[in-house]
């Protein structure tokens, strides 16, 4: 690093208003003049590169077309041919008050998903209605979606007033009709402005370019730009309770670093955090800052990396909060959602649901109401058990495993989710009724059904992971059973299929005819390996907790499992014999020393240390939670599946 780049930052001149840009989405029916209005705003605020207008004028002449302000935006050749806007564009302009990010959202019905893409991040909206065409289905649908997305700062621009002779009567008719509609959906437009975008009337000034006359003296309200200047910037999230969804966990420089963005609240070194859904707590040890001095505090909006003082198991999707203001944890909730998938959204079919950094299987368990966005008429949920493209619906959703969330009015970031179908985000929803856990079993009808023989792939797709064997080996008292049970619990709570094989459930039944002689030990391990392999075949993650002292036996176990086509992880639970003997939980060591038990591993029988285990856990030097975290960090990525055509399953 250069020495100059490390020198102290100094402050110089101030560029006014840089900090409060407002994101404004422009929506409206196809051909109602959005692109023209935006082009006009760029022109009026002097926000275009020099020569751009001339360039477009010339291009129009070359094509024998009349110049239009819309061409300033419709840069793509194909768009010019169709003369409609295709996708969201985000460009900036600036009034004397502040800078704006403009989001142009298309009005064409087929492009609803593009409109959502733009509108979802907006602070305010300009909704266009052409005076000569009046309120259309799209105008209603867009109004509804703005309300669904929670955008309340809306200005309605009644465009093309020049085509209706700047008639006050026409304007008031449109205003009356649309106002009535908006009030039904709980949106109140801050203003209705009659404009002529192509002539620049009531965009920035009240007059027509060519004549410098005001064609609508009867209108005394604000222009579009002066109205935008009255809107408020987004509300600060710093005052809300802390929500820190974990994005990833890195291991760099021998440290576990928890990365993510603070969605709301503040986080300080020394804070005790509770991680949902497993409710583990730990204290923030540091907030990393690669390029500068260590930080003691970070706030909503920041992407941070932190370390914890106690190593607990944390993974992507966990949400850190403060204990006195934790989010809801549930597998069942009510939501209002919109759907834009190519296929219908069906009840009782599994979809992937994403909320912040969480990703879970989810299904619609009931549809309370389907709302046609244009008529606002309700379609009976008894007559339809699916949600079609562009529908809006009230539903109850159940997830496989606990979802961490907030109701949307409490915390928007943790109260909205998307649904993925065929790899693409196909719907979005807002949670308004978090319900506490319902332990009713998820009905399995039609979930991940198989068309023929049930293959390991089918099982993996249903479970969300592959079958696998985690083979713990180590001396008696090294901590295998405790570790196995804790890893099992974590995997189970994460929605995975898992089972522990240990002396308790094997010795007394399956292997009750075996003792501790060397040949019996060999047979014991062989049977355990075969059973583990079968269970992995059935789709389970199997954790075995046996001393399994001989290298050759463990090698054979590995071969059996690998031949069965499953992953095998050997984890050496390594604690010195002195430590194990001191622990002597079951009193076995003292009985072995006294000769009461013969052929006891470590005392009167050998233990062969693994040559090359996948994991080594030094249980005398690390806490149980640290060991658990290390096993999970190693195993979970290996058993994950990529998707329906993941070739590895």
């Amino acid at each position: 690093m250069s020495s100059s780049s490390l020198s102290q930052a100094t402050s110089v001149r101030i560029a006014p208003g840089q900090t409060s840009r407002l994101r404004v989405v422009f929506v409206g029916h196809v051909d109602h003049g959005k692109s023209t209005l935006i082009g006009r705003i760029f022109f009026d605020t002097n926000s275009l590169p020099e020569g751009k207008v001339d360039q477009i004028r010339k291009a129009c002449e070359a094509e024998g077309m009349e110049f239009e302000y819309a061409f300033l935006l419709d840069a793509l050749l194909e768009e010019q041919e169709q003369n409609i806007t295709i996708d969201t564009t985000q460009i900036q302009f600036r009034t004397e008050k502040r800078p704006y990010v403009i989001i142009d959202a298309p009005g064409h019905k087929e492009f609803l998903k593009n409109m959502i893409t733009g509108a979802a991040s907006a602070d305010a909206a300009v909704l266009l209605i052409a005076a000569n065409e009046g309120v259309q289905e799209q105008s209603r649908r867009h109004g509804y979606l703005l309300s669904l997305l929670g955008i309340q700062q809306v200005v309605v621009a009644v465009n093309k007033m020049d085509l209706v002779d700047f008639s006050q009567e026409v304007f008031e008719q449109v205003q009356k009709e649309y106002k009535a509609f908006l009030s039904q959906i709980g949106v109140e437009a801050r203003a209705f402005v009659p404009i002529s975008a192509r002539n620049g009337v009531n965009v920035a000034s009240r007059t027509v370019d060519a004549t410098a006359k005001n064609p609508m003296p009867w209108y005394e309200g604000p222009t579009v730009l002066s109205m935008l200047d009255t809107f408020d910037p987004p509300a600060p999230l710093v005052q809300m309770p802390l929500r820190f969804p974990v994005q990833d966990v890195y291991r760099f420089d021998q440290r576990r670093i928890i990365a993510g963005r603070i969605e709301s609240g503040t986080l300080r070194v020394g804070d005790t955090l509770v991680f949902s859904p497993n409710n583990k707590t730990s204290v923030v040890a540091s907030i990393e800052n690669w390029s500068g001095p260590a930080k003691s505090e970070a706030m909503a909006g920041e992407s941070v990396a932190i370390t914890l003082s106690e190593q607990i198991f944390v993974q992507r999707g966990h949400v850190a909060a403060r204990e006195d203001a934790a989010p809801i944890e549930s597998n069942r909730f009510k939501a209002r959602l919109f759907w834009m998938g190519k296929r219908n959204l069906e009840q009782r079919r599994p979809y992937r649901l994403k909320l912040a950094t969480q990703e879970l299987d989810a299904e619609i368990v009931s549809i309370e109401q389907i709302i046609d966005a244009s008529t606002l008429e309700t379609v009976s949920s008894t007559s339809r058990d699916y949600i079609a493209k562009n529908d809006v619906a009230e539903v109850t959703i159940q997830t496989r495993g606990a979802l961490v969330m907030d109701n949307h009015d409490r915390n928007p970031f943790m109260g909205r989710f998307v649904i993925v179908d065929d790899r693409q985000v196909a719907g979005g929803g807002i949670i308004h009724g978090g319900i506490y856990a319902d332990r009713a079993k998820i009905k399995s009808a039609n979930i991940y059904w198989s068309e023929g023989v049930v293959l390991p792939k089918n099982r993996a797709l249903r479970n969300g992971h592959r079958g696998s064997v985690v083979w713990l080996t180590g001396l008696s008292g090294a901590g295998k059973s405790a570790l196995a049970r804790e890893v099992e619990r974590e995997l189970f709570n994460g929605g995975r299929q898992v089972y522990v094989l240990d002396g308790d459930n094997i010795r007394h039944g399956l292997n009750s005819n075996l003792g501790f002689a060397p040949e019996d030990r060999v047979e014991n391990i062989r049977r355990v390996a075969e059973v583990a392999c079968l269970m992995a075949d059935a789709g389970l993650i199997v954790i075995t907790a046996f001393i399994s002292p001989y290298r050759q036996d463990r090698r054979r176990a590995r071969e059996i499992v690998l031949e069965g086509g499953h992953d095998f992880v050997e984890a050496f639970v390594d604690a010195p014999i002195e430590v194990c003997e001191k622990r002597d939980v079951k009193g076995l060591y003292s009985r072995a020393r006294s000769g009461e038990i013969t052929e006891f591993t470590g005392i009167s029988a050998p233990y062969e240390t693994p040559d090359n285990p996948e994991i080594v856990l030094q249980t005398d030097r690390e806490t149980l939670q640290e060991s658990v975290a290390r096993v999970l960090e190693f195993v979970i990525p290996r058993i994950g599946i990529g998707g329906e055509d993941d070739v590895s399953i």
Partner: protein
Amino acid sequence: MSTQEYRLPDYSEHPAYAKKYPAPAAGGPPAFFPEKISRDDAAHLDALEAQSVFLIREAYHHFKNICMPWSMGKDSNVLIWLSLKAFCGHIPYPLLHIDTTYEFPEMLDYREWAVRNYGLDLIVKINEEARAGTGEYAERGPIGYDTADPVTVTHELKTAALQQVMAKHQWSALVTGIRRDEDATRAKERYFSPRNKDFEWDYKDQPPEFWNQFTTSCAAGEHVRVQALLDWSERDIWLYIQREGIPIPSMYFARTAPDGKRYRFRSLGCWPITGAVESEADTIDKIIDELATTKTSERAGRAQDHHERNAMQKLRAKGFM
């Protein structure tokens, strides 16, 4: 060796400097090391940085087999900086430089210096067959600015080269430095933008993207471009470089030409087709002030964009970034 000790050789005879912009002083430093200065855009730059770091981490989480193209220009150096921030001083993926063989020579020095300074895992790709006129180019002969038009050269030496190296490494995601304000075509981009096997970007049917939920998987053979700088403007880039003190190539800064006037580059590309603009800006402060008054577009000096109408769109349709 200390990266500070890197010194430029004498390039005064190199043809890349035959036009307006003069060669750097022999023995000079390999980069421009800005003095750290914060203007009053802190909250805005913080927000851009946070979003970019979030996007880079999302990319790394969802696509482990990932690569970051690096042109050595100002935007891609900001990307390196943001990666280092995202991963606490590490960059857990390789960088890729598509070398057209028409790089300004001091840019290669900058590359060499940066690799050592940051400890980069750098892959350099040249479309050797196209330059030599061998293999599938045997019939057409060597491709270069002396034999073909700029659009063709850009396609073969950049896009085709990228396709070749992608086919070899099978990356499922590329972290790019595309910005919305660069070009109207780019204003339509998503943060996570899937492209198919033929590198086609179906802008008419892009997946929706909102609430920071992205298209995070793709079919075999496809890849996703993760556009971590999409929201940044040219001005934001300079303000951030200045605030953070990010070393960048010194060709962005004015040098005095033999005609007595001063010139700099606003955008860096192949030397035969990249023109310097007249400018007095020899500090970042001056560049930022210049941007406040200029109304020419950033890529005005890049000939391949203007060779014919909709050239950019055609390049994009063929897989250009």
